[in-house]
Structure formats: structure tokens, C-alpha cells
């Protein structure tokens, strides 16, 4: 029997906004994602997509409900255990790239390996190989601000991949990129998913971006409004 890589059970997230009040960003969300899937998450701004991604990435915890990653209840794990999960099982790609500006491209990509306990020479070797794979081998000594947005996002992807994670979480990875570059980035994701079987979850609000995935989860107002094959969900949304 195939245990899902990700299982969200009755997830609720509310943010306190002072004076005892709180806004509910997620209201009772349930779903599961199997290993090897390529999923898009769509929804209007403020619908709770980022909130959901942060919980899936073990950066944040749900107010109530359970989130199982690879069969483990994330709510029962220590801070260090969560750090280890983020390090080895998950790769993040953010809208704003989130590279460390003072480090070289190579050092940026090597950093997760250092946190995994490798020494610097070995992690540099692997990081250089990773940069080659996303076609940026020649830029290893540059700093992030010397690169275009598309190149920076490729560096971020190389960093996300360097520890060979099973899951990549990308929150609006093309939000800051032009449509051609976005297209390239999404193709790269597609290859990763097909060739290496990496599970991909990509948040976007552009249907064209979402179409690169096979499954689409539609989030509205903190709840799942649709979940299924991309085209069918898109049609239902349009109507």
C-alpha cells in the first residue's frame, strides 16, 4: 500500500491580530499528495496558499489539525528534527529567491550541504555539479545581485536540489519573472519531476503556469474549493 508523502488532516491556521481577535487563514483543510506528484496550488491573493506552503515546509505549525510528512506527525517533532527535515527532505524555492546576498553563488548552493554535516570542499564539489546541471556552472564565483532574476531563481533551484530532496515546494516561483523565463523555470520543474521523480508543489495564480502540473488544488478563503486534474479544475473555476 502506497503511503502518501504528504497528508493534511483538518488543518486550521489562524493568526492572532491582537485584542484577542484572529484571522483564519486555513479552515479545516484535508488532502494528501503522493510521492512523485506534480501539483499546482491556485487561488486568489490572501486565500491562504503561502500559509499552507509554510506548514507543508515545516517552517510553521498549524493551529489545530495534523500534518504528516513522510508518515511523521510534524507537530510532534522537535525544532532540530524539523530543521533536519527541511535540510534533507524538502527543497524551497521562493518568489523572492532568498539567496544570501553576501555569499557567492557557489557558497549559496553549498550551504544546505554544510548544514547536512559535509565539509566545505566536498559541499563545494557537489554544489558546483548542481550549478552545472541548471546551466550556471560559469557563474559560480558571482554574487546574487550580479545575476538576472531568472538566473537567481535557477540558483535557488540548484540550492533546493543540492541535498537531493524528495519534495520541492515553490511559492510563486515565477512571480518576479517574465513569461519566457517563467516558462523555462516551469520546464525545469517538469524535467525534475519526470526524470527524478521529485514531488513538486507549485503555488501560482497564473493558469498557464498551473498547466505544467498534472494536478491542481484550488484554494479559496482558506478552504479547498477544487482538487483534481488541472484542466477540469480550471474549467470549474472559470464557470
Amino acid at each position, binding site marked *: 500500500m502506497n503511503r502518501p508523502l504528504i497528508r493534511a488532516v483538518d488543518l486550521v491556521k489562524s493568526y492572532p491580530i491582537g485584542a484577542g481577535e484572529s484571522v483564519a487563514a486555513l479552515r479545516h483543510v484535508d488532502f494528501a499528495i503522493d510521492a512523485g506528484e506534480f501539483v499546482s496550488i491556485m487561488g486568489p491573493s490572501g486565500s491562504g496558499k503561502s500559509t499552507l506552503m509554510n506548514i507543508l515546509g515545516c*517552517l*510553521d505549525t498549524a493551529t489545530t489539525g495534523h500534518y504528516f510528512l513522510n508518515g511523521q506527525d510534524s507537530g510532534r517533532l522537535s525544532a*532540530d528534527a524539523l530543521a533536519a527535515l527541511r535540510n534533507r527532505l524538502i527543497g*524551497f524555492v521562493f518568489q523572492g529567491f532568498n*539567496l544570501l546576498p553576501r555569499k557567492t553563488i557557489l*557558497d549559496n548552493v553549498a550551504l544546505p550541504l*554544510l548544514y547536512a554535516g559535509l565539509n*566545505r570542499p566536498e559541499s563545494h564539489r557537489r554544489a558546483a555539479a548542481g550549478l552545472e546541471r541548471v546551466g550556471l556552472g560559469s557563474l559560480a564565483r558571482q554574487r546574487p545581485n550580479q545575476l538576472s532574476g531568472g538566473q537567481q531563481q535557477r540558483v535557488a533551484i540548484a540550492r533546493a536540489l543540492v541535498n537531493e530532496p524528495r519534495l520541492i515546494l515553490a511559492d510563486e516561483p515565477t512571480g518576479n519573472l517574465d513569461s519566457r523565463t517563467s516558462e523555462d523555470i516551469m520546464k525545469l520543474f517538469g524535467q525534475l519531476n519526470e526524470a527524478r521523480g521529485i514531488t513538486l508543489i507549485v503555488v501560482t495564480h497564473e493558469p498557464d503556469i498551473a498547466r505544467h502540473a498534472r494536478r491542481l488544488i484550488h484554494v479559496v478563503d482558506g478552504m479547498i474549493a477544487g482538487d483534481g486534474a488541472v484542466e477540469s479544475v480550471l474549467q470549474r473555476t472559470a464557470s
Partner: protein
Amino acid sequence: MIVREILGEAGQSMGANRLRTGLTMLGMIIGVGAVVLMLAIGQGAQYMVSESIASMGSNLFIVLSGSSTSGGLRTGSGTAPTLTLKDAEAIEELPDVEAVAPVMPNNAPLIHGASNWSTMVAGTTPSYFAARDWSFVSGEGFTENDVRSATRVVVLGQRVVQNLFGDEDPVGTTIRIKNSPFLVLGVLAPKGQSLDGRDQDDTALVPVTTAQRQLFGDQFPGMVRFMMIKARTRESMPWAEQGIRDLLRSRHRLRPGQEDDFTVRNLTALAQTAAGTTRAMSMMLGSIASVSLLVGGIGIMNIMLVSVTERTREIGIRMAIGARRRDILLQFLFEALMISLLGSLIGALVGFFGAFAVSRIVGMTVVVTVWSVLLAFLVAASVGIFFGFYPARKAAGLRPIEALRYQ
């Protein structure tokens, strides 16, 4: 993360913001530099005092002509001396007294060939060498015979030899003091500065009778300006002092209630006081300097706190890609530690060379010990850990998502 690599990360971020790192370090440099310098000056002063004390001779009294009053000592050129050579001889008979040296000092020019040098020429007795524990580097001292027959012989201090003879050995040559020829019998060992800052080697000693009869005239026949008296032991000093006072009062026919016409001063006790004062002063200097070390430490904490706030997002990114709390804690702690260690290393060097600059420029004696440098260094390192810990813990305690969202 491997500790060595965390160190590397800390080093990288130190290097990435050189101005900030440098300014923080400056606080430590000044702090440690000040401590090392102040300790060097304090220990230099202590060293000087202990050298002077050692050179003074042990268990020593000085008895001066003239009484002491509440306002201080009434002596000087106008006062006639009240102590006599006979007093000295009588004191020598006291059971607790080992040696008595009457001293009749006066300034006089010394001439040898083309060189001349003016110094304090003191008429005294052979007991002086014993009282002051003063040995000879060349030749010997004069004897009781020389005193009895008032021969024209002289013993020279190092400074006088330097100025009149240079590197030559003066023993056996004849010099002129106030135009009379004197045979040089010996050269005294160097003693350096006295407690009151005089150069003890800038002196010439002649038999007291010679001084009175042939050099400085017979203005006060048989009189001496002061006497150096050595007690037999440290413990017998109070008895010796009482004995000297009683003896002099009866010899000078002072009635009860009448003021002493002499002053007995326990030089050894004065020296102890001076040593104590110097020690206190040097501790005070050290503690004042330590305050700047503390200020430097607070500077580190301040900068590290600013740094943690400024780098919140960086911390968030590091956590997102797998940094554990320990990794972040150690990175910031190492950073503080490296700043304080490097700062104190530079500070120790600055203090070290500053101390030599001070001794060169001001002519002060300084003593830099390994211990004082080590102490300043260790204190600085602890300051770095202590003041670096709070900001580091703050950084490590951040929640990943909040750090990542920080703008």
C-alpha cells in the same frame, strides 16, 4: 554543521561587514590595550619602588638635624646642624644598633683631566657601606684610619665615573675636588633611583673628617647633617628607635617637654608604606582600565544585537535550508568571540608597544608581564562569550517563518 564550518561562516560574515567588525573590535582593542598599558605602568612603578627599597639597605633609620613639626621637617641651609660625630659614636654603642654612619653632604665640582662634574660629595665613615649594604665593583672603601688622619681619598658612584672617566677604571687615579687632589680608592656598585627619585649613583664619598677640615671648611666643627643607622634586625627596630631618641635627648640635654632637636625616621617603614601605596595605585589603574574592557564588551553585545536584527532574514533563510538552533547559536557566538579575541590580540599588542612608547617618551619604567597580557586576553575572551551569548541565543531562538518573513 561541522564546528569548523560554523567558524568559517562566522568568519565570512565578519569579513563581509568590515567597518562594523572594525568598530566593534576597536572597543576591545582600547579596553585590552588600556588594561595592558595600565598594568605595565603600575607594575613598573612597583618594580621601581621595590628596586629602590632593595638598594636602600635593610632595617634602616635616618636621623636628621632639626625637629619635625606638624608642618613637616625644619631643616635647610639656614639651620645649624645639631648632630655631632660624638653622637654617632655614642649611638653605635647601643645594643640594637649594628652600624652608624654620620653624613656631611655638600655639592662640589669634581675634575679629572678635561672633564668636570658637579655632584654631592658626602663626608662619612666606613660604617656607611655597611649601613647601606653597598658593595664595590672596583677597588675598596676608605677605613677608620683614613677618617682618623683625614686623608684625601674618595669613593665614586657609577654616574660620577661615567661622567669623568667613561669606560676607564678610575681606581688609583687622582681627581680634584674643589681643587684639592684626591686619590680614587674604589667605585661603588650601581643602585639606581632612591624612593624620592634621586639618582643614588650620582655621589662621591670621602672620610667625614676630610670633608669637614679640607673641603667644606670648619663652619660647624664635629657636626653632621644626618646619620644613617642600621638596626640589628627588623624586630629590634622599635627598640633601636627608642634607644636612639633617649640617648640623643640626654646627650643634647633636652628637658622633659622640650621638643626634639633631631628627627628619627624609620626608612624601612616608609618604604613599606611607599610599596603599599604603589600597589594600591597600580590596582586602581588596572581596575579603571577594566571598566573600558567592560564597555568594549557591551559594545560587542550592542553590535551583535543590531546584527541579529539586521540579519533576521538571513537567519530565516539559513533555518529554511536546514540550520539547527545550535548552528545559528554557535555562528553568532563565534562571531562575537572572534571579534573579542582578535580585538584583544591587537589590543594586547597595542598595550605592549604603547607601554614601550610610554617608557621611551615619558621615561617611565614599565613592566609588561606575560601574566598581565594573558589576564587581559582571558578576561576579554570571557567578555566576548558573556556578551555574545545573549544576542546569539536571541538569533537561535527565532521562529523560522517569522525570521523569513522579516522585512
